[in-house]
């Protein structure tokens, strides 16, 4: 069998079995050897000790989505693994390594026709002083994937360096035993050789990438209220903001967090908070204030399953509506969505830049899948999008904070500037910022705030547009990777597909989308919602020039390239 450009491995275990550590090691070994990879964790509801699985896809190219099914599944044990339901798909080509003392493999494995090979990982581990079954699994997986013990040992030395020689020795022995145990096991799949590249590569999560993007864009203050799956953004920012002269403040709740960043930004320091659906709900009132008072802020919403508390640890795209339409009154603002772990950096940086340039809130819609997956990526280029707010200079005469400037953006005085004193206000105000209920002022300021968004030239970054087929997929966010892969597969089938994924969701870009859709004869809208929010949003603002099919379903299972591919083929 020919070497494959991508191979997928899942390692399953109950709490404390170390499945996630094992997968992380595998990823790092592969990356050190030049491959790319994407690592997604999936966990039970328990804080500690629940079932856990690590899903890993390795490839010769950057990986942006999970596979349709796995080539190799290792069950260190299967306690509660049935809870993963269909999350870890197996098929007749799948090799399953199972510890016979680890309970019954779940139906998703046994009913798949997969080949199951039993290895007594626990028993083998017992025979090693300090041995742990997950190191046996690491050894097995490494050998099956074609890594050498040296490669794995090098990583162990690096990662466990501070744990002492006994720990390292035990791990090495375990890995070695795993290599031996794997000796007789046939594994058809083979990963193609890595493509040599000069690019510097990083290994990070979408949440980390977004946080770095914010700092690159100019953010120097963050207010934090923890919430799954956004917390890592805040946790990464805390020490790193300090390094660059910034500050993170833990807030008592999201109402405080959002107001804190408004205060910071009012004072001239670009500011951010990160949250998920329930927290975004609580921020809505003050995001409206920032819109009316024209204070730039960045709010990252790492979406999870909804509604309400929903499924905190799983991904969905169902906060689109609230992000776009959630504010009371007419309150245009920016909504952007990164398209991959890597793009989380760019999009968050761009969002920060745009918020500052347009003096308005930017909501960045990331999601649990993108935010919490770790991926090997090529170091994103340094781009010039660094917050450039129009700040008032040499103020003389009466300062008009909300002057009706041509582009709609008026220069902002910062506290401390003599002569710039004004009161920022959520009340309808005059150009001077004085409260009014005059129809003329109200309309003028509404126009101003709309126009500054509508007339801004967002350039080509507004969307990823790929291919030129007459069947267009319109999708967004973390589904972009799966859609891209689906388009590639369709191309292999001879179906030429165009993919359009807006990175800028609001303000809408009707001319640009119309241009991107030119010549299209079928439009497939793909999103991960129950209600088809994105589809409705497109209809509301665009005259879609061809028949539309909406393919959408809710979480918690990620939408795969396979599903999208099928939707394409079914309509071809």
């Amino acid at each position, binding site marked *: 069998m020919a070497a494959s450009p991508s191979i997928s491995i899942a390692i399953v275990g109950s709490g404390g079995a170390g499945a996630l550590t094992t997968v992380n090691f595998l990823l790092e070994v592969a990356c050190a050897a030049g491959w790319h990879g994407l690592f997604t964790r999936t966990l039970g509801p328990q804080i500690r000790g629940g079932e856990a699985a690590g899903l890993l896809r390795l490839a010769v190219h950057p990986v942006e989505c999970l596979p349709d099914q796995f080539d190799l599944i290792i069950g260190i044990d299967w306690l509660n693994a049935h809870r993963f339901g269909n999350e870890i798909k197996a098929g007749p080509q799948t090799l399953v390594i199972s510890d016979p003392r680890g309970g019954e493999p779940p139906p998703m494995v046994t009913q798949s026709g997969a080949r199951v090979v039993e290895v007594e990982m626990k028993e083998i581990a017992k025979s090693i002083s300090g041995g742990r079954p997950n190191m046996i699994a690491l050894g097995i997986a490494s050998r099956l994937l074609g890594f050498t013990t040296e490669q794995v040992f090098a990583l162990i030395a690096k990662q466990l360096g501070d744990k002492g020689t006994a720990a390292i020795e035990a791990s090495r022995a375990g890995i070695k035993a795993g290599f031996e145990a794997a000796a007789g096991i046939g594994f058809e799949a083979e990963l193609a050789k890595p493509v040599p590249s000069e690019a510097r590569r990083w290994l990070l999560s979408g949440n980390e990438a977004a946080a770095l993007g914010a700092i690159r864009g100019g953010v*120097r203050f963050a207010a934090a209220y923890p919430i799954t799956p956004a917390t890592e953004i805040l946790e990464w920012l805390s020490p790193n903001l300090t390094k660059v002269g910034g*500050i993170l403040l833990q807030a008592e709740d999201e109402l405080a967090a959002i107001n804190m960043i408004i205060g910071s930004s009012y*004072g001239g320091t670009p500011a951010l908070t990160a949250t998920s659906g329930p927290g975004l709900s609580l921020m809505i009132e003050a995001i409206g204030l920032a819109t009316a008072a024209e204070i730039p802020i960045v709010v990252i919403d790492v979406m999870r399953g909804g509604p309400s508390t929903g499924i905190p640890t799983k991904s969905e795209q169902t906060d689109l509506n609230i992000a776009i339409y959630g504010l009371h009154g007419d309150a245009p603002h920016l909504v952007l969505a990164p398209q991959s772990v890597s793009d989380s950096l760019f999009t968050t940086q761009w969002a920060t830049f745009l918020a500052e340039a347009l003096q308005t809130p930017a909501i960045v819609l990331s999601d649990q899948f993108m935010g919490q997956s770790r991926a090997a990526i090529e170091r994103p280029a340094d781009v010039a999008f660094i917050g450039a707010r129009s700040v008032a200079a040499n103020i003389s005469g009466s300062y008009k904070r909300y002057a009706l400037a041509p582009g709609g953006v008026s220069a902002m005085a910062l506290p401390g500037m003599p002569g710039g004193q004004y009161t920022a206000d959520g009340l309808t105000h005059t150009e001077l910022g004085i409260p009014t209920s005059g129809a003329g002022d109200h309309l003028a300021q509404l126009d101003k705030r709309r126009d500054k968004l509508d007339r801004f030239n967002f350039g080509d970054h507004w969307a990823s547009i790929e291919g030129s087929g007459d069947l267009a997929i319109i999708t967004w966010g973390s589904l972009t990777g799966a859609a891209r892969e689906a388009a590639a597969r369709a191309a292999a089938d001879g179906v030429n597909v165009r993919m359009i994924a807006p990175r800028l969701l609001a303000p809408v870009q009707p001319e640009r989308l119309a241009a991107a859709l030119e010549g299209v004869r079928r439009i497939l809208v793909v999103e991960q919602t129950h209600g088809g929010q994105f589809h409705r949003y497109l209809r509301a603002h665009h005259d879609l020039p061809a028949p539309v099919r909406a393919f959408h379903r809710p979480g918690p299972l990620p939408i795969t390239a396979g599903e999208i591919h099928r939707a394409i083929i079914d309509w071809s």
Partner: protein
Amino acid sequence: MSGLTTRLACKPADYKSDLKPIWCPGCGDYHVLMSFTRAFAQLGLPSESIAVVSGIGCSSRIPAYTNCYGFHGVHGRSLALAAGLKVTRPDLTVVVASGDGDGYSIGGNHFLHACRRNIDMTYVVMDNRIYGMTKGQPSPTTEPEFDTALTPGGTGVAPFHPLVVALASGANFIARCFSGDPNETADVLAEAIRHPGFSFVEILSPCVTFRPDEKEWKELVRPASVPATSDQGKAARRLMTDDGFNLGILYRGNRPPFQPAVGARDVDLTELEKDFEL
């Protein structure tokens, strides 16, 4: 307080804007405004170095009536907004203005946490024991039998003790003033602004429209009979049992203010990438 570097020959009028207040004739808040401007003049602060932050309510309209930087935010969230401003701009003098509805009802949580956090700012609550702006509903300091359209015959709920809440939450400077004495109030405000860390000044400020009975306050208030204590236990007992009309600085502790060190910003961002490199 910060921004004390420049001292000028300042007059209270320098801190007043031209905007005509929307307040009713006779409202106590006019006197509070007077106390603000007198305190600022006393301290000789450049008006552009002061930020007055508020929520929503009659009392919360005060920022625009000063000639300082102002933020008239949303209802109940002024302390949070001010926290974000002050930690990133420690050079500013930040004064937060609120009412008993804005500050104690919807804003109660931020009150707790602002006291706890002890960021250097001054929090002024103009307590008129009523929601003035929305035309007369009871607040957390309204007497239980006070009759309103929303609560005919009274709420039946006893008012709480904001000063003890402040103390329990960590406030380090606690004072009570009466708007009818703008000189004394200005002095206390100036002292509160000078105090490093969070300072809390409750100002009894009558609502002549919905609480005409509060005109009698001038007969009820009196300077506290004992000087400010710095003993938490003593202060707790004293504030818990006072009748709400003792004026002056009532507690003064010496917890250091919270101000995260702000480092240099012109650093090489590529430093941050190290963690990610393969």
